[in-house]
Structure formats: structure tokens, C-alpha cells
């Protein structure tokens, strides 16, 4: 009796918990945006392309601009009107002489803008397998000098690949994904994104290393007008369901006056993967250096988009180094992939999946129910016993 009843209660409880949790957790951030994509130039490109994605929300617009002229750059502009547009003076943009060739109209509606520039790919020889990037650096790859292919557009993703020389084998690719609603990517690290963020995946595929013990470092620059991304916070959290064995999240945020309000962010998990469809063993930790002030002028010179949009940019640079002491070198798989989210507002916050909540509720709830149920049953049984006289008269 007891086991069958318990089983039935268990099934009902699990179904109830799952259905209630689905609504609870999937409706976390239901803010949606409409996406429209435009690729410049309309004709054959001569020196690189500019991708413009317009994500329109209820009463605001987020403009994503992704450019392969010079160093690959992603620019986000957040405006408070849902009819703001981007105007590009293409000849001036190509000339890269003046700023103001890319404008967001109306100018007064701009709330916040931030840009990430991929400036350099560094390689060093890690002879002693200590992963200290202090010496033995080979000449750096300047990403502004790479030959970039045409952007490959599909759904709401754009893929861009480049190699150091025209006939070079091996490439560095970037893939931008813009989202209209909350969701989670399919491949590891399965970052949780909202409608206010875009995902950038960077991967090195087949680029020949210059030594057998090379490790790579990627240099990023964050550019902003008033408040560029300035500090990196590392958050620890207990849930590694979506990225097994990674319990940390790094966030590069811009918060004015060290306040609690976060205007814009870049978010990543400190892990890189050594194969395209990674398993747990292919994960390699990565570290970042402290953000440092850099010359805004040289950033302008290296990226057409920065030159076009910002008149007086402030640039802060950060190095992401892949691999730590004891990890296999780059030449074990000739592949490295790393993913980051770039967005405005506060970074998305992860939560437990319904399955975990369901198992815990069932696992803890059922013994308590059994205790209570059994206690009540015993009390009733005792009462029934004591209500009888015990001895029955013979006559």
C-alpha cells in the first residue's frame, strides 16, 4: 500500500513542480526586440564591410554595428526612441580621415554607447609550461592588417574570418549573434543572453603556431565616450549545469563613479575550448589581465568604425590569455574558441534549471511527507487501540 501510494504522490509532485517552474523561470526576462539587418556597402566591398542590426524594443532601440575595416569592431548604441536610425557617409567612412561619418539620428536620443575592438593576437613560447606571459613573445599579429573575408550572414548571426596573409592557411574567425529575446546558446559555454546583449564567439582555426609550445593571448580594447568598460569583476556561483566544471563568471563593466548601476558590460566565463564540439576534457581555463588605459588615437587609427563614430575616444585594453600551467599547448588540436557577451544595462543572471529544483523538492519533500503521514497514521492507530476496552467480556 505504502510504496504504491508513495509512487503516485511522487509522480504528481514532480509534474506539479515542473509545470510551475517552467512558467517561473522561462518568463524571467520576456523583453523582446524586433531585428532588422543591413549590410554596407550595397555593392562589391572594397575594403571591408559594415553590418548594422537594428533591434527595436517597446520604446528604445539598440543598434549593433559590426565592422571588418581594420581591426574587427563591435559597437553598441542604445537610444531611447524606437525610431532612431544610423546614417553612414560611405566614402568618408572608407577614407578614415574624419569622425562623424557614422551618425545615429537623432543624436539627443543616445543613452549609452560602447565598443569592443579586437586589436592584437599575441603568441608566446611557454618553454617551462608555466603559462606566465612575461617573455618569449613572438611578433604580434595586428588584426587590422589581417585579410578579412566577406561576412557570412545567416539568421541573426554574422561570421567573419581573416588570416594574416592572402594565401595563409588557418584563420581567426569572429561570429556575432544578435538576439531578440532571452535564451541560451546551444554550444558550450552556453551563456545566458537577454534581448539587450549580443554574443561574440572568437575562434582560432588551424593558424600555424611558431613553436611547439606556443600559447595565445588575445588583446581587446573597450572604447566608450564618457564611460568605457573599466573594471573586471569575477563572480562565483554554484551552478555549473550549463558549463560543467566552471564556477566563475567574469564581467567587464562600466559603472560611473563606482556606483551600483551598470551601464554596459562584457561578460564571459573563464574557459576556452580546444575542439569545435567540445567535451569536458577539451576545456582549458583562460585568464584576463587588469584593464589598462590605452591611447584612444591609436585605436581610432586601427578601426574605421571607432574613427567614424567617436571624435575623442577613451580606450581601455585587456588581455585574455588561453591556457594555464600544465594544460596542453595550442598545437595539440590547433583550435581555440572563446565566447563573450556584450550588452547594455546589467548583465544577465543565471539561475537553476527546473530539473534541479524539481529533484530537490521531490527529494526533500517526500521524506517529510512520509514522516508526517506515518506519524498521523500511527497516532490514529493508537487512538483506535486505546478506544477499545482491551478485554472483551466472556458472556
Amino acid at each position, binding site marked *: 500500500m505504502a510504496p504504491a501510494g508513495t509512487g503516485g504522490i511522487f509522480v504528481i509532485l514532480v509534474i506539479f513542480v515542473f509545470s510551475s517552474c517552467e512558467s517561473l523561470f522561462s518568463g524571467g526576462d520576456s523583453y523582446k526586440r524586433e531585428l532588422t539587418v543591413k549590410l554596407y556597402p550595397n555593392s562589391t566591398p572594397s575594403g571591408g564591410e559594415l553590418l548594422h542590426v537594428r533591434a527595436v524594443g517597446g520604446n528604445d532601440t539598440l543598434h549593433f554595428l559590426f565592422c571588418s575595416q581594420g581591426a574587427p569592431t563591435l559597437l553598441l548604441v542604445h537610444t531611447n526612441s524606437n525610431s532612431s536610425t544610423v546614417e553612414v557617409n560611405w566614402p568618408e567612412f572608407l577614407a578614415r580621415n574624419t569622425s562623424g561619418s557614422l551618425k545615429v539620428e537623432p543624436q539627443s536620443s543616445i543613452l549609452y554607447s560602447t565598443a569592443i575592438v579586437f586589436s592584437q593576437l599575441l603568441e608566446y613560447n611557454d618553454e617551462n609550461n608555466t603559462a606566465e606571459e612575461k617573455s618569449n613573445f613572438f611578433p604580434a599579429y595586428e588584426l587590422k592588417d589581417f585579410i578579412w573575408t566577406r561576412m557570412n550572414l545567416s539568421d541573426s548571426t554574422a561570421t567573419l574570418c581573416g588570416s594574416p596573409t592572402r594565401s595563409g592557411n588557418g584563420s581567426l574567425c569572429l561570429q556575432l549573434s544578435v538576439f531578440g529575446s532571452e535564451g541560451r546558446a546551444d554550444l558550450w559555454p552556453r551563456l545566458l543572453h537577454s534581448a539587450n546583449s549580443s554574443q561574440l564567439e572568437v575562434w582560432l582555426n588551424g593558424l600555424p603556431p611558431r613553436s611547439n609550445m606556443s600559447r595565445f593571448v588575445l588583446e581587446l580594447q573597450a572604447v566608450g565616450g564618457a564611460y568605457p568598460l573599466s573594471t573586471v569583476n569575477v563572480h562565483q556561483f554554484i551552478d*555549473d549545469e550549463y558549463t560543467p*566544471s566552471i564556477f566563475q563568471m567574469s564581467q567587464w563593466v562600466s559603472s560611473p563613479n563606482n556606483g551600483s548601476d551598470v551601464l554596459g558590460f562584457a561578460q564571459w566565463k573563464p574557459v576556452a575550448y580546444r575542439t569545435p564540439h567540445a567535451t569536458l576534457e577539451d576545456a582549458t581555463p583562460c585568464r584576463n589581465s587588469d584593464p589598462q588605459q590605452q591611447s584612444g588615437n591609436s585605436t581610432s587609427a586601427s578601426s574605421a568604425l571607432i574613427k567614424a563614430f567617436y571624435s575623442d575616444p577613451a580606450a581601455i585594453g585587456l588581455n585574455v590569455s588561453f591556457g594555464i600551467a600544465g594544460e596542453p599547448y595550442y598545437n595539440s588540436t590547433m583550435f581555440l574558441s572563446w565566447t563573450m557577451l556584450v550588452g547594455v544595462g546589467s548583465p544577465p543572471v543565471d539561475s537553476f534549471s527546473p530539473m534541479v529544483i524539481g529533484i530537490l523538492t521531490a*527529494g526533500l519533500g517526500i521524506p517529510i511527507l512520509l514522516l508526517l503521514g*506515518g506519524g498521523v497514521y500511527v497516532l490514529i492507530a493508537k487512538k483506535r487501540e486505546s478506544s477499545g476496552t482491551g478485554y472483551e467480556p466472556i458472556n
Partner: protein
Amino acid sequence: MADFEERRSLLGDENEDRGPGRQLSAICDPSHVLHRVVVLIFMCFLGFGSYFCYDNPAALQTQVIQDMNLNTAEFMQLYAWYSWPNVVLCFLGGFLIDRVFGIRLGTIIFSLFVCVGQVIFAAGAWSNHFWLMEAGRFVFGIGGESLAVAQNTYAVNWFKGKELNLVFGLQLSMARLGSTVNMNIMGWVYSKVAVAVGSSGHTTLGISLMIAAGTCVFSLICALVLGFLDKRAERILHKEQGRTGEVIKLTDVKDFSLSLWLIFIICVFYYVAIFPFIGQGQVFFIEKFNFSPAQARAVNSIVYIISAPASPILGFIVDKTGRNIGWVFAAVIATLCAHMMLAFTFWNPWIAMSLLGVSYSLLACALWPMVAFVVPEHQLGTAYGFMQSIQNLGLAVIAIAVGVIVDIRGYLVLEVFFCACICIALMAVVGLYFVDYLKGEGLNQSAAERAKLQKETAEHAE
């Protein structure tokens, strides 16, 4: 390894100790306590090698995974293959020792299996063949559990009487010492071999495991010496060879009461949350708590370190107070708290692992004697054999599941899985309490009540 040492009721013939014909020096006189201390030392080291080598994979987890190119699921197969032969052998161990080999030859044969198994395991690593490593663990498993049966039989034969509990306690402590030493030393051994060989890799792993096999050779020597001393004692004292006295009749299974089945459920679901967790614990502590490999191994071994002194003390307390179900309940709750701490907080894992060590010892002291309370004596062998068999079955299956879970969903889901297993054990404890209360079987009596009841039954029988 299964807690064979914690359970024992005395089944044995009365042996008449006839004195030796001529005078021997104290240490050579088999009936003198000094000689028996010497025998005790060899008896304790008999199991040292197998316990040392059982947890070799856990101590070298990162190295095994990296050198042999494995994922966690394949790594946990090394533990699953140890448990598979013991699903069947738990029933056959007593039979093999009593009827087929005899205690002396049986011990030597099982020690040989342990030794050969570890050598095959090391050879598999050296030659970079993972299937050979799995085969080695299988052979190792054939010898390991049966060797524990033999060790206990020796103990009963030589130390029957008041000293037996002390001897069991010492054997258990030696076993735990072997596990602890393994956890803390093998990493160091590997690094030294890597320096000598020049690089890490499967060759280094093979050599390190071969060095570990040295402890098994040492245990084999102890088995040979014990066999010699036992034969000599038999000749001098004219006593019979030790027997386990177990009678296994599989048809008895249909007579098992509901309480016994609940005890089985507690046993299976509790131990699958302990041993597979320790088996892959090192990487968990490195990844989540940022421990160094040496620290991770140390915290992994704390369960065994605590169990060595705690088991005799807790056993004494449980014996004195009775109320076994209450103690089992406390142990299960404590383990659940420990796993939840490891899952949902970043608190120092030393706390959770120490709690785990104490609760694991407590459960062993309280759970295994309960079997003797609900099963008539002639079925005891079958009951214990069955309990060990399904425990090994559970360990084998869950070891594989643990590996798959870590690879696909990570450590939080793994810990939640362990919590779920403990919750099932908790449900069984609650069920056992009520079944026992309603049927009046007296599993939860205090020791005083039980003694009074036994006296009354004895008086009644006269």
C-alpha cells in the same frame, strides 16, 4: 570498498586449545599472546595492499584522465569493473574458503589475484591500452573482496572471544590507513617518477602503478607467512582450520522481511553517494574550490582518516545505547547536509568532508548489526552476502552514471543526484522506523531493553 569489517556475528566452533607438547619460547608459542600479536600484525597488513591500490584511480585522477585520454565516464569504469565480479563473489567467498580452498590456500590465492590484477592494471597504463587497465581492475576485484572475507575468518579463528572486536577494529583502521596513505602519497610518487622519466605520460603512470603494486606483493608475503604460521599452529595446538561458517542458501531470499529489504535499500543508496563521490572527488575540489591537486587529495582522504579512529568509538557508543534506527537516521541526515553544503555553498569543503567521515562511520556501526537483529542465525550468511552483492551492483552501475553526469551536466547536477540518492535512503529509514514500530520488531530498542529482552527469553527457554 564494502564495509565487510563492520559486520560480524560470531559463528564458529568451539575450539579446544590443547597446550603444546614441549616448551617453546613465548614468541614461538601459538597459544601465547606475544605470538598472536605477531600474527595480528601480519593479519592487519594482509589487507593493506588491496585497500591501498583500490583508490589508486582516485588519487591519480587528473593524471589518469590526461595520460590515457579519457573522459570522466571512462575513468569511472575503473571503479565499476572492480565491483562487477563482487556481485557474484559475495555469495561464493565463504563457500570457496570453507569447502574448496581452505583458509590458508584461499588467502594466498586471493592475494595473488590482487597482486596480479594490480600488475595488469599497471601494464595497461604502461602500454597505453585502456582495456587492459579495465581487465586488471576486474582481476583485482575478484581478489579484493574475498580477501576481506579471508582476513575476517583468520581473525575469528585466532582471536575469538573478548579480543575479537579490538582485532576487527584494528583491521579496519589498517584498511583506512592504507586508503589514506594512497591518497596522499601517490601524487608525490607520480611527480618523482615524472622527473626521473623526463615527462609525464602513460609510461610514467604505468611505472607509478607498478610501484603501488609493491604493496600488494608485501600483502602477498604476509599471506604466505600467515599460512605458514597457521599451519604450524594447527600442528602444535591440534586445532582445525578456520572456517567462515557461512551457509549461503539463495532460496532464503524469499523469507526476507520488509524491514530487511528496507535495510538493503538504505545500504545501497547510502554507499553509492560515498564511494563514487570519493572516486572522482579530486577534480571536483580542484575545479570548484580552487584547491591545488595535493590539497584536493588530502581533503578527499579525510573521510578515511576520520573513519579509522571514529569507527571503534562510535561502535562502542552504538553498542551501549542501542536505538540503531535513530543513529542511522542521524547519519543519513548528516550525510545529506554534507552533500548539500558541497553542492550549494562555497564553504570550506573540509567541514563537509569531516561531517561525511563521521556520518559514514556512524552508519556502518549502526546499520550492519541491524541485519543480525531481523534475520535468524541460519540465514545470516545469505543476508550479508546478498547485501554485499547488491551493494556492489549499485556501486558498479552508479559509478558509470556518475561519470556520464559529470561529462554532460557538471558537478552541481552530480551533487543533486547524490542528494537524491541520500533522500531515497532517508525515505527508507523513515519507512523502516514505522514498519519496525508497527510490527514491534525492536530494531530501535535501547541496549538496556534489548539485554532485558534477551535475558527474559533465555529464562523463558529454560
